[in-house]
């Protein structure tokens, strides 16, 4: 396998903590291998910065295989970078050309305060789940698994929504910073399954309420969230959420 190297100019948002004002710093990396992942390119930058007594760039990551949802950089204005259906940890440098300038910013939303540099606080998502993103079934109280058949198509639809990795790209990319796709996906996942029925009304009302309390914006149906979602969750999740919300209001 032959590989070519390139020079990449980086413009990275640096911010000490949530209270301080941030600014851009520019760096140039030579010898960027096309087979490197984007995050490995940042690793290499950090190794250099550390040896030069600089302050390494902080960014969130963990599994580096697109499933944990830790990484969430906004690259040249696009959440998770240029490739569709790809989390930034799965993005490789062969998608860039020699001499490119790459601007990296954190996911920006009032509900996602910056912790340091590109690391943001996404605990608002935890609190939305906490409000109702579950089926209340105490350990040990579950019936036999095959007692309730679930239509295969329905199960697949629920699965499509359940694949959300909670990265927050939907919020980052939304012009209004709305968390509707994240919230809608969890509601749609559980409300589509028979197991989710008993709590369906309480769930949607509580989760929508919490989403609003966290300071996320309104959804204006831009569908940018669907475009950046690394697992391709459709905005029909948001339509499902609205429908369930209406149903909940009229269901007594």
């Amino acid at each position, binding site marked *: *396998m032959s*590989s070519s190297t390139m020079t990449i100019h980086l413009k990275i948002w640096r911010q000490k*903590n949530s209270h301080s004002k941030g600014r851009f710093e520019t760096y140039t990396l030579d010898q960027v*291998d*096309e*087979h490197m992942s984007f*995050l*490995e390119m940042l*690793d290499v930058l*950090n*190794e250099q*910065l550390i*040896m030069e*007594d600089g*302050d*390494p760039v*902080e960014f*969130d990551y*963990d*599994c*580096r295989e697109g499933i944990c*949802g*830790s990484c969430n950089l906004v690259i040249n204005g696009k959440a998770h970078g240029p490739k569709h259906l*790809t989390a930034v940890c*799965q993005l*490789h440098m*062969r998608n860039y050309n020699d001499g490119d300038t790459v601007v990296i910013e954190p996911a920006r939303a009032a509900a996602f305060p910056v912790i*340091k540099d590109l690391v943001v*606080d*996404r*605990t608002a*998502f*935890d609190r939305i*789940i*906490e*409000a109702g*993103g*579950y*089926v*209340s*079934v*105490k*350990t*040990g109280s*579950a019936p*036999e*698994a*095959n007692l309730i*058949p*679930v239509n*295969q198509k329905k*199960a*697949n639809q*629920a699965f499509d929504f*359940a694949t959300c*990795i*909670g990265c927050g790209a939907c919020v980052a990319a939304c012009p209004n910073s709305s968390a509707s796709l994240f919230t809608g996906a969890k509601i749609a*996942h559980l409300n589509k*399954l028979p*197991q989710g029925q008993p709590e369906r009304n309480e769930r949607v009302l509580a989760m929508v309420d919490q989403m609003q309390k966290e300071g996320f914006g309104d959804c204006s149906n831009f569908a940018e969230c669907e475009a950046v979602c690394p697992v391709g969750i459709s905005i029909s999740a948001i339509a499902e959420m609205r429908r369930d919300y209406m149903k909940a209001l009229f269901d007594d």
Partner: protein
Amino acid sequence: MKLDSKVPSGPLEEKWSKHLNEIKLLSPNNKRKHSVIVVGTGLAGASAAASLAELGYHVKVFCIQDSGRRAHSIAAQGGINAAKNYPNDGDSIWRLFYDTIKGGDYRSREANVYRLAEVANEIIDQAVAQGVPFAREYSGLLDNRSFGGAQVSRTFYARGQTGQQLLLGAYQAMMKMVHTGKIDYHPRKEMLDLVVIDGQARGIITRDLVSGAMEKWAADAVVLCTGGYGNVFYLSTNAKNSNVTAAWRCHKRGAAFANPCYVQIHPTCIPVSGDYQSKLTLMSESLRNDGRVWVPKDPKDERKADKIPEEDRYYYLEERYPSFGNLVPRDVASRNAKIVTDEGMGVGATGKAVYLDFRDAILRDGEDGIRAKYGNLFDMYENITGENPYKVPMRIFPAVHYTMGGLWVDYDLMSNVPGLFVAGEANFSDHGANRLGASALMQGLADGYFVLPYTLGNFIADSDLSRPDTDHEAFEEALSASKAQIDKLLAIKGNKTVVEFHRDLGNILWDKVGISRSREGLQQAINDIQVLRKEFWQNVRVPGEAGYYNKYLEFACRVADFFELAELMAEDALQREESCGCHLREEFQSEEGEAIRNDEKYSYVAAWEYKGLNGKLEEKLHKEDLEFEFVEPTQRSYK
């Protein structure tokens, strides 16, 4: 140190129910008065935290990720085993037990493994009730598949995201209890020490990864669910933040570390492409159902794969193992890949890869047929490597994947330090010397949902515990020690980064404590690790300060612990003069390269007691003898 496994007496099938009938109970009123610390929010941690809180205990949960949902359990792809026997193909709890204990090469405890097989069915019930979207048949009933060479279809799966879906189920159950106030939830806090008072685990020390604040937490029991230590190799399929620190600090506070040398190496990973490589990506083993593994016969063959004619290809698995061929178990496939690449036949720029070729399968089933089966895996491969596996063979290489070793626990999942419980991959208990596919998820959830909630209650009911109190001097002592280590690391200001040290350590382990091990190599490894560890403490360069978010400082603390664990792994591999499961000692194999187990001398759990560190790691070996009352150990053969 005394190792009492506390396995209940009586017939295998009755041990767990008998134990449940005998353990002490706490009234709801009393449970409310007790608190439990759970460290880690993977399958084991999240399920334990949720279940304990439901019972009424006050639970404090800690994880290093920014959300409990990101624990590394999320990355498990394949599935979860349970002997529901839905396909009516003759499966039973006994068979699941037998396969697991045989798969572990008779190096695990019969009673634990049987209980695992027993409670597995309940896990499926629980997960389905939580809304985990397992695959279903047209009938709407649950689908099963055969996984990892099992003769029955007992694996429940959720596309290639079974770990994710099961973890989200457990995470959501946990968040429900956070909502009720029964759980205090602390993401981005890393456990740095265990506080032991009067021989009992009474709390932990954490570092807040955002503010750097060191904090003390007291409770009646501590449950460690902090995963495996595969990242000691630097490159592994583990998430970047997976580490051994919490378990290792417990070990240094008295908890025995069992079978540290048992490391599972997965044969089908995407190979390393360069020095910058930060982690390895696993591809499902199912690829070996249709792909053929080969290397060029001539190490100097520079031709492209598709230009190499049939007669110049060496299909080494098919030739060496005619009956199993490309479907030999993980360890056999991994070992053979290493052998051929060591002989210079490896392919790719680094020479550390073998071909996994779908040419013949595509000729047989058509490209669309293969796409239907493996489309997403092929896409992932192309995304990472930039090569189209429909046109050129995949390149694969083994990678460290799972660690069967871990903190020693008894039947109740309690370590030898009373009050310290260990669950999931962090303990050593169920997989022996080798883990079967789709068993990790099963074990994590079995421990958390269906074992710990009972056994932990038994411990609390049975103990005379004083009120937890962080004012005790032991807390201050532990906190100061952790702080001192951080200060020491920051003060070195040497010339080599943490990553470089970690990579060098990984190379030593991969070469000498990896797929195959030898006496000479292990002795060399111990020496090399000691030298490198010494250099680490003199020359590591950790940037920044302790008072804010500092990822490289986190890594430095973890790598410091990996350096100590690494030596213990080599020690453990050295003392085990046999080959078993994933542990292959070159001196103990047949002429055909088959592992030779020595049941007479090594049918024991090696549990190590920390004795100190003085240039050399001082550890004392304790043996828990494994007795097989119900199954007869046999030698594996895949010829």
